[in-house]
């Protein structure tokens, strides 16, 4: 089992955050611009922050940044692609998540420029999960998806979390989705991050 622990973790004007996430899906909600995405970027150690992040009691600052980012799998709200073909962005040729996301076998030969936003998002999820991160940080992963794909992604993430005992922090605005999946929910409001008690 993996544990993600944040200790006096602080970005911008947000109050310091102390939190421990085990193999569970923790939803993070709050108004746009509250700092949800920045918080995920800080946990990935992409931006400067105060306080410490621990993965199984190993401090982020003691781990090589490349290793840390391999453990902490962050899915940004918008996926980025830098080669012409989809397949060039994947290190392994067999990816078990493609079929689960209703992506055909030949999708590796697609031109990135011809993919729709939804296709790119599903491809990005498959690309991230194939790296087998210990933790998932998902920034509105289903915002651009059709209802069928939303269901597919939800069950994939749920299974991933229970199969690898992986903590998941999931940013979402979708109240129904939060209701469907949540084990815990936190809300950012007025610079404070507080647990939403049902």
């Amino acid at each position, binding site marked *: 089992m993996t544990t993600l622990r944040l200790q006096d973790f602080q970005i911008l004007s947000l109050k310091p955050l102390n939190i421990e996430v085990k193999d569970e899906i923790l939803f993070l909600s709050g108004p746009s611009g509250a700092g949800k995405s920045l918080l995920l970027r800080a946990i990935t150690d*992409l931006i400067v922050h105060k306080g410490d992040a621990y993965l199984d009691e190993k401090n982020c600052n003691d781990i090589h940044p490349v290793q840390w*980012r391999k453990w902490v799998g962050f899915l940004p709200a918008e996926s980025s692609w*830098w080669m012409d073909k989809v397949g060039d962005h994947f290190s392994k040729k067999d990816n078990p998540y493609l079929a689960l996301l209703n992506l055909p076998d030949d999708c590796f030969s697609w031109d990135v420029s011809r993919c729709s936003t939804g296709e790119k998002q599903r491809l990005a999820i498959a690309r991230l999960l194939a790296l087998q991160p210990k933790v998932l940080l998902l920034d509105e992963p289903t915002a651009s998806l059709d209802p069928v794909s939303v269901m597919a992604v939800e069950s994939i993430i749920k299974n991933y979390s229970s199969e690898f005992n992986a903590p998941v922090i999931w940013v979402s605005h979708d109240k129904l989705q939060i209701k469907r999946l949540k084990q815990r929910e936190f809300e950012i409001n007025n610079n404070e991050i507080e647990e939403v008690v049902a």
Partner: protein
Amino acid sequence: MNVISLSPFDLSMAALLVLLLALLSLILKLNLASRIVIAAIRTVVQLLLIGLVLKALFAQISLLWVSALSIVMLLIAGREVMARQQRRFGGLWGYGLGTLSMFVSSFTLTVYALIVIVGTDPWYTPQYSIPLLGMMLGNTMTGVSLALDNLTTSAWRQREVIEARLILGQDWRTAIGDITRDSVRIGMIPMINAMAAAGIVSLPGMMTGQILSGTEPMEAVKYQILIMFLITAGTGFAAMLATWIGARHLFDDRQRLRLERLS
């Protein structure tokens, strides 16, 4: 062969052409007339001044004075590199990066050329060292500023891609690899093109000048080849060095992309 000395009258006949051009652009409302005239006056004043400096320098062969002039040339070239960049590093880095790269590359190669290739005695003989260094700096300056400009502008534009690659566990070198390769290439292309076109499309300026002033063509050609090789190597090394240090400085010790270091 004797050099036909140019009289002030000869030069004013040439200046007449520039004035004609300025007049024409005034009529065509190109908004260039004053800039043409000012630039032309700068050419005359600056070249006359450097002519006087060189004359004084050649009269007494002193390492101190050669070094002093070299440093001034380097600092001006460094300022020029900085001015040619849209997004440059903030603070001392903005000036230091280009200047350091040009210093390492141009000075080393010039000293190498003087001691190993030309074999002047003493090695810093100003008649050789100053023009050589000037040619090196002038071209290295172009290469370094093109490379750095591409590096910083591309990094700025492709921030999402670079960060996405970091997120997927690539190190900074790989994440910005496409951009650094492009930057070095862009910095070197003008010199590679110049080498390829030399003598066919264009007669290089230095060689033309030597021939006009009476040097035997084959001697001028040999010096031109030397200069071309030196400039190409110097530009390439400086562009690589500046790009590498610049790219490294875009990331911090935790390999985060720090675009706020650009101003």
